[in-house]
């Protein structure tokens, strides 16, 4: 009961923050926060809830950015339609990548996704008649009937419903029976397989869903900036979203959004202040979080609240394997 009330309280706070954001920060930065938040939440779906570290998620964010941009430029359809089209492209791309990647597990999976994302990057670079290559895809319009969306402040409020819808979808997936199977797969794939579930198929589906949400985020990003570039498919973008998720708390879903907001704000502040060494700071934050705060921000807060209330339930750190006999996993 109390938990639900608290949960609703947090929800209200979150919504209020989302709505008030462009008043508090420079509107284009607010839009960035919203997009990256959805992107990070999409990643957490895979990392925190399915136990798969994708180090190539930029492939989905970026391919959607390009697809959305192209649809917007060439058809003049309302931007939500373009964004949806982009998300579909990302999901279609996720199928072969997912099917091939799940043949490996754990850290191999991460390396394989990283390599696939690089393929997408080189592909986007080569296909420059479509993507603009190094120049990027310029002049992506913002259409919505006849509404004037040129002011970033106004556009934010039109983009926000899509972001919230994506976040809501992620939340529903996690709460559903499908989501429970994913968590089970994260914790003990062998047992899930023994129970008769086709583990790989669930994993691929999770990847596709995550790609779709990342696609929505990437599409909005492209429309918001009026621009889609190779940076969107580059591996540093994949790394950045992983940092956000870890910072916020793997497996907490909302932690990812908070991690995203924090990182975007810090980067903006540093850039405005003219500080030269954003990567240094990012790397340090990362190292500190991985060494000392593996639960991330939200995870640590929850942990503290739980221990204070003395629930006594086990609260293991995400993804920790018992340090017992090393498992030798059979090759799929």
């Amino acid at each position: 009961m109390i938990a639900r009330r608290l949960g609703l309280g947090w929800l209200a706070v979150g919504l209020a923050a989302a709505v008030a954001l462009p008043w508090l920060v420079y509107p284009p930065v607010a839009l960035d926060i919203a997009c990256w938040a959805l992107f990070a939440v999409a990643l957490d779906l895979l990392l925190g809830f399915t136990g798969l570290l994708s180090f190539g998620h930029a492939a989905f964010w970026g391919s959607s950015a390009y697809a959305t941009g192209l649809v917007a430029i060439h058809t003049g359809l309302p931007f939500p339609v373009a964004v949806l089209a982009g998300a579909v492209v990302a999901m279609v791309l996720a199928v072969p990548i997912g099917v091939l990647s799940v043949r490996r597990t754990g850290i191999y999976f991460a390396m394989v996704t990283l390599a696939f994302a690089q393929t997408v990057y080189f592909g986007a670079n080569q296909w420059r008649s479509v993507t603009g290559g190094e120049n990027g895809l310029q002049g992506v319009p913002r259409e919505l009937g006849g509404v004037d969306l040129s002011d970033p402040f106004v556009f934010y409020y039109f983009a926000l419903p899509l972001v919230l819808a994506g976040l809501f979808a992620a939340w529903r997936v996690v709460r559903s029976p499908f989501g429970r199977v994913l968590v089970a797969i994260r914790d003990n794939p062998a047992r899930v397989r023994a129970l008769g579930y086709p583990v790989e198929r669930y994993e691929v589906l999770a990847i596709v869903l995550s790609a779709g949400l990342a696609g929505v985020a990437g599409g909005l990003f492209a429309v918001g900036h009026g621009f889609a570039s190779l940076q969107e498919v580059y591996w540093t973008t994949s790394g950045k979203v992983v940092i956000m998720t870890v910072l916020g708390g793997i497996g907490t879903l909302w932690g990812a959004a908070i991690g995203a907001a924090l990182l975007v704000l810090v980067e903006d502040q540093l850039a405005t202040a003219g500080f030269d060494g954003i990567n240094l700071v990012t790397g340090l934050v990362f190292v500190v979080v991985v060494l000392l705060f593996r639960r991330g921000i939200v995870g640590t807060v929850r942990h503290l609240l739980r221990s204070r209330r003395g629930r006594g339930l086990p609260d293991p750190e995400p993804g920790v394997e018992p340090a017992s006999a090393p498992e030798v996993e059979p090759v799929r």
Partner: protein
Amino acid sequence: MRKRTTRALAVAATGAVVLAGCGRGGPGGGDDEKVTGGKLVLAVLNDQSGIYADLSGKNAVTAVQMAVDDFKARHADKAVAAEIEVVSADHQNKPDIANSKAQELYDRQGAAVILDVPTSSAALAVATQAKQKKKLYLNVTAATTELTGAQCNKYTFHYAYDTWMLANGTGRTVTEQGGKTWYIVYPDYAFGQDMQKSFTAAIKAAGGSVVAADPTPFPNDNFSTFLLKAPTLSPKPAVLGTMQAGGDLVNLVKQYNEFKLREKGVDLAVGLMFITDIHSLGPDAFAGTTFTDAWYWNFDKQNREWADKFQAKTGTRPSFAHAGDYSAATQYLEAVQRAGTDNSDEVVKALEGYKFSDFFARNAEIRAADHSVVHDVYLAKVKSKAQVTEDWDYEEILKTIPASEAFRPAAESGCSMGG
């Protein structure tokens, strides 16, 4: 419980609608126009931490500040704006960042003009922003001919150099001087492809021929494939024309020397070279190479005077980009002075067709047709270390290419100034 949920959500939703409807007082909304007589903001957008940080970078901001100070001194009380501020941002050579930063500079910082902007992809992104925001943009440091070609617009001007000028300078001159057969190697992206086309046209026009042209991956640090191929081509090319820039160029030249291609009879012509590249590898690595430079600090007394002033402030000698930024800032300010306002359309009118000659742009004209700023350029040769008498004294100027010949004729630009 359900009532509570509904109520909470209703409050949140109402709050959202109210806030959204309540006008847009947040930063970024509202009035962008600078009141004449108030503050004028000049923005320098370039690479401050990457490969072009030495070429323009932070010292370019200093150069623009010098221009502002000199303008104020020149006009004293009659200056059109009492307060002139110089701001800057780092685009890290990325077009997406350039796109965002340009927006920010125009909106958040109230910049009336953006200067510099190296890297062709970034340069084009800023041009799109300039067009949208209807604010001025004087590019100094990027090479793409698109700025005054297919992507030209009313508020964008291109100073200093572009791929056509480079091709025409180096390509034509080297061919005329005996290098009739060429093997062109270019990085496989917009700039490289542009260069390859420009050079091929210039070489053919001068009576030479291109034996082969190969795209290389970009970026790339291993050119052995191409360097090994060069002497085996038939007919053997007299010249290897490389269109690589920055780090790639450094790599290629290193390996060119390693493979001893000059001894094998294949000379080196560099499509785009900056004095900072020569400084980076040392003159001996490039000794004897011919290239086209928009401006050289030690060309004559006038240049040297300015270079001394620059050195007093920065501790180093200026590249063409620094001088170009000074000149562009000065010409912008003078145009505002002439127009009596910083209204973009009026300033554009004051700039178009304007003829001038300053230490950077000799015999210059700001063409109305395509907004290309044409001026004299120079064919230079890299000195060997033995010939270098002082720091940065790397270039021997072979000849001056007059403004009328140096740049692409306006008729060929493909620019239609729609606005």
